[in-house]
C-alpha cells in the first residue's frame, strides 16, 4: 500500500469517482471527480490534533460500526494517503462560527473549508476495472438473529473484534459485555449457495470456508482454551496449503459439524446463543450454546461496479459479477477492447487470487500500452454515405457505442471501437452498412452455393464465430455424429443475420433455416444477440402472415463447450427438414416471388415484464410466461431456443 503512495508513475486519486468514460481502445477519455476532502492531503502529517478537538463522534465504518471516530478522521492508521479527511455531512464547521476547532488545532494550517470538488480529465490507453465485492448483509435472515442479538456478528466484524488495530486493540471481546467468549460458533454459507433469492445467492462465495478455518485457527493460537464449533454444508479447502490449515485446526480441537442451524435463540440473561442443528454426519439432533456466533457471510458484486460496467460496456454474469471475454482463454480480458478486469469484480476472490489476477490484468494491459500503435482487425462496419438515411437505428443497436450519429447526420463508425459483430448492418433497412470481410454479397453467394443444387436436402445454417460455430467444432472434436444436411455460414455474431438473408434462403428453396449463436450470458458482443431474437420474432410473424409455416425457421443458442447440444440441434433440424414437402417449398417460392415482406411484429419496450404467450418452433409446445428482453427463452419441454413470443390479446 505504501508503495502506491510513493511510486513516481502512479497518480493516486482517492476520495474520487469515475464519472464518465468515452473513446475506445488506446484512446479513452475519462472524467474523474475528486471530491472535496477539506484537508490538504500533501501537507497533512496525520498528527491527529484536529480529531482530538473535534466534538462530533460517529460510528466508524472501517471498524464495521464497532468503534467510533470523529467527523475529521483518518480511515485507519496505515491509510494511504496518510492524511485526515473531513466528512462534510457530519462536520459542524461548514459554518465556522458553529465550530472550527480543528482549524485552530492544526498547526500546519492544512484544513480548508473552502475546498471544492475538482473534475479531472485524463486520457488513458487501457482501463483495469478492480471495483471489488461487497459483504452480504445477513440482517434479512431473521432466524440467525443478526442485529437482534448483539453477540451474533459477521465474519468481517469478527476480524475487527480480534484485530490489534480494532476497537478492542486485539483483546477479543463479545459485543454485549466485552468479555472474552469461551465458546464460539461459526455458521457457514450465510447468503451463499441457496436457490431461494430471499436468502442469498446461488453461487459459492469461494473465500468463506478458508476465512473461517483461518479465524478458528487464529483463535486457537491466541486463546487455546476456546471451544470452537463450525457448522457447514461442505468444506471447500482446495487451494495450496488450505487443506493443511484445515487439518491443523482440527488437530487443535476445532470441531466441524456438517449441518446448518435452523434457528438461533438468545438467553436473555447470559446473552449466550443457543442453536439447534441436525448433525447430518451423526444423523442426530444436537443443541449447542455459544457465547458468540460468527456468520460466515458470502460476497456479492459491489454496488459501485454497475455504473462503471455501463460506462465501459461490459457484460455481467447471472451472478452479477463482471463477465470475462472467455472463461478459460481470456479470463482477464473483457468484450470491450482495452478494458481488463482484476480481482473480485469478476467473482469472489481471496487476496492471493486477486493479486494473481491483477498481475495478469496488468500484463495484458501492458501488452497494449507497449505498442505505440494498435492494429484493428479489418472486420469492422463501414457506412455508405450515399445510402444512409440518417435514421440512427445502427447507433441504437450497436452494443459498443461505436457508431456516432446525430439527427440529420450520416452515421459514422469509429472503427477502433467497432468489434465487427455486424448487428448494425443487419439492422439497416437501406443496405447502407457493409461489414468488411463479411459482406452481404458474400453471404448471398454462400446461400446461392448451398441451394442451387438439391436444395430440399439442405439446412441453411448461420453460426456465430465464438459459440455456435465453435460448439459445432466441439461436436466434431468429440466425434458426435449427426445428419449431414446442415451447411454452415459463419458470421462473427448471430446479430449479423439480416432478416433479408433468411427471406432470400426461403425464396431460393430452403426447406429449413437455422440461426444459431451464443447463449445470452455468453454473447461476445455484450447483448447483440438480443437483436437476433427480436429479428427472429419479426421473421416468425412475417412467415405466418405470408401463409408459410413459421416453424421452418429455427433459433438455437449453443456454447463453444456444448458439442452434445449441437448434435441435438442438428438432429432436430433434420427432423424438421424431413417434415417439409417439395410442394410446400414450391408454394413458398411462389408466395415469396411476389410478396412484399410484411412489417415485423416484435416485442416493444411496453411488453417488458408483461405476460406473453410463447410457442416452441421445434416441438410445438405453447405456454404463457413473462417477457423480458434480457431473458433467454428456452422451451421447458424440449430445451430449444426457437421460442416465439406472442402478445397476449387483451
Amino acid at each position: 500500500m505504501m508503495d502506491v503512495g510513493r511510486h513516481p508513475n502512479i497518480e493516486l486519486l482517492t476520495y474520487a469517482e469515475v464519472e464518465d468514460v468515452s473513446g475506445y481502445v488506446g484512446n479513452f477519455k475519462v472524467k474523474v471527480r475528486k471530491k472535496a476532502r477539506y484537508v490538504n492531503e500533501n501537507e497533512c502529517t496525520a498528527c491527529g490534533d484536529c480529531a482530538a478537538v473535534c466534538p462530533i463522534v460517529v460510528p466508524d465504518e472501517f471498524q464495521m460500526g464497532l468503534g467510533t471516530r470523529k467527523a475529521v478522521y483518518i480511515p485507519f492508521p496505515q491509510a494511504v494517503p496518510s492524511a485526515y479527511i473531513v466528512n462534510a455531512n457530519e462536520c459542524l464547521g461548514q459554518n465556522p462560527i458553529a465550530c472550527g476547532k480543528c482549524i485552530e488545532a492544526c498547526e500546519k494550517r492544512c484544513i480548508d473549508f473552502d475546498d471544492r470538488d475538482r473534475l479531472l480529465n485524463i486520457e488513458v490507453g487501457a482501463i483495469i476495472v478492480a471495483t471489488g465485492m461487497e459483504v452480504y448483509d445477513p440482517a434479512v435472515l431473521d432466524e440467525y438473529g443478526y442485529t437482534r442479538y448483539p453477540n451474533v456478528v459477521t465474519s468481517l466484524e469478527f476480524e475487527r473484534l480480534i484485530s490489534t488495530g480494532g476497537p478492542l486493540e486485539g483483546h477479543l471481546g463479545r459485543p454485549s459485555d466485552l468479555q472474552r467468549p469461551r465458546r464460539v460458533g461459526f455458521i457457514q454459507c450465510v447468503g451463499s449457495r441457496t436457490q431461494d433469492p430471499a436468502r442469498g445467492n446461488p453461487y459459492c462465495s469461494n473465500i468463506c470456508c478458508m476465512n473461517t478455518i483461518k479465524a478458528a485457527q487464529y483463535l486457537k493460537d491466541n486463546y487455546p482454551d476456546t471451544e470452537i464449533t463450525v457448522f457447514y454444508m461442505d468444506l471447500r479447502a482446495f487451494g495450496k496449503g488450505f487443506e493443511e490449515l484445515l487439518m491443523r485446526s482440527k488437530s487443535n480441537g476445532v470441531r466441524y459439524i456438517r449441518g446448518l442451524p435452523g434457528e438461533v435463540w438468545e438467553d436473555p440473561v447470559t446473552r449466550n446463543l443457543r442453536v439447534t442443528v441436525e448433525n447430518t454426519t451423526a444423523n442426530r439432533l444436537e443443541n449447542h450454546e455459544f457465547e458468540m456466533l460468527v456468520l460466515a457471510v458470502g460476497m456479492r458484486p459491489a454496488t459501485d461496479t454497475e455504473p462503471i460496467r455501463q460506462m465501459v460496456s461490459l457484460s455481467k454474469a447471472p451472478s452479477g459479477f463482471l463477465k470475462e471475454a472467455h472463461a478459460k482463454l481470456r479470463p482477464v480480458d473483457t468484450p470491450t477492447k482495452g478494458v481488463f478486469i482484476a480481482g473480485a469484480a469478476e467473482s469472489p476472490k481471496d487476496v492471493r487470487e486477486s493479486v494473481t489476477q491483477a498481475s495478469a490484468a496488468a500484463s495484458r494491459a501492458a501488452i497494449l500500452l507497449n505498442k505505440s500503435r494498435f492494429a484493428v482487425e479489418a472486420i469492422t462496419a463501414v457506412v455508405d454515405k450515399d445510402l444512409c438515411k440518417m435514421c440512427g437505428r445502427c447507433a441504437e443497436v450497436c452494443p459498443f457505442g461505436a457508431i456516432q450519429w446525430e439527427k440529420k447526420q450520416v452515421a459514422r463508425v469509429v472503427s477502433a471501437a467497432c468489434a465487427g459483430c455486424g448487428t448494425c448492418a443487419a439492422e439497416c433497412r437501406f443496405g447502407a452498412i457493409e461489414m468488411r470481410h463479411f459482406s452481404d454479397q458474400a453471404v448471398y453467394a454462400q446461400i446461392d452455393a448451398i441451394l442451387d443444387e438439391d436444395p430440399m436436402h439442405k439446412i441453411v445454417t448461420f453460426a456465430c464465430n465464438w459459440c455456435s460455430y465453435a460448439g459445432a467444432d466441439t461436436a466434431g472434436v468429440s466425434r458426435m455424429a449427426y445428419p449431414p444436411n446442415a451447411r454452415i455460414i459463419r458470421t462473427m455474431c448471430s446479430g449479423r443475420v439480416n432478416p433479408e438473408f433468411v427471406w432470400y434462403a426461403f425464396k431460393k428453396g430452403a426447406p429449413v433455416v437455422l440461426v444459431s449463436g451464443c447463449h445470452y450470458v455468453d454473447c461476445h458482443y455484450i447483448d447483440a444477440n438480443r437483436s437476433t431474437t427480436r429479428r427472429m420474432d419479426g421473421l416468425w410473424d412475417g412467415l405466418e402472415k405470408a401463409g408459410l409455416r413459421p416453424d421452418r425457421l429455427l433459433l438455437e443458442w449453443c456454447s463453444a463447450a456444448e458439442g452434445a447440444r449441437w448434435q441435438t440441434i442438428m438432429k432436430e433440424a433434420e427432423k424438421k427438414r424431413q417434415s417439409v414437402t417439395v410442394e410446400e417449398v414450391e408454394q413458398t417460392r411462389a408466395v415469396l416471388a411476389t410478396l412484399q415482406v410484411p412489417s415485423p411484429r416484435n416485442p416493444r419496450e411496453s411488453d417488458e415484464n408483461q405476460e406473453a404467450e410463447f410457442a416452441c418452433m421445434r416441438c410445438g409446445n405453447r405456454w404463457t410466461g413473462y417477457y423480458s428482453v434480457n431473458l433467454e427463452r428456452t422451451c421447458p419441454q424440449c430445451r430449444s431456443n426457437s421460442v416465439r413470443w406472442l402478445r397476449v390479446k387483451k
Partner: protein
Amino acid sequence: MPTENLRIGVFVCDCGSNIAGAVDTEAVREYAATLPNVVAAVRNKYTCADPGQQEIQRAIYEHNLNRVVVASCSPTSYEAIFRKCIEGAGLNPYLLEMANIREHCSWVTPGDREAATRKAKDIVKVAVARAHWLYPQDEEEIPVTDAALVIGGGVAGIQAALDLADAGHKVYLVEKKPSIGGIMAQLDKVYPDIECSI
C-alpha cells in the same frame, strides 16, 4: 461485382486419415477444379505442415493465384497460420477462406463415405463462392496513449497499478474511499499462513 480475373486455388487436406478416412478427398479435389474461377486444385496429406504451406506458396506464384481456399479444419484453429502463409507469398491475408471439412464433416459423418464426400464438396463450393467476394483489407492502426486507469484501490487495484507502474507506464489509480486498501485492509490476518493483511 466480384473482382475480375479471379484466380482461385483450392487446397484439399487429407489431415492424415482425419479427413481422408471419412471423405474421398481426391473426389473433392477433382470437384473443386470444376468450380468457377478455380485455376488450381491441390491435395495434401497435411496442409498445415511446412511442405503443405510451401505447396500453397508455390501454387500462388505458379498459377498467379489471387484467392486461396484451404479445405481442412476449423478456422478457429488454423486461419491465422494460413493467413500468414499466403501473406508470405505476397497475398493480402484477407484473401484466404477456409472450408471446414474436418470438424464439421469428416469427424461427424462416420461410416457414410458417400454422404461425407457430398457434404465436403458442398462445403468447398460454398467457400469458393465466398472467396469471390473477398477483398484485400488493410488493418487500421490507431495510436495508443501510454497510460492506464485502474478503477478501485483494493488489493487487486493496488497490485495492477504497481505492476503497470513498475513496467514504466503512467497509472491513475482511482479509489472512491479516502484511503486505498479495500476489504483487505479490514482483515486482521489472511490465510493460509495467517499473516497480517497490510
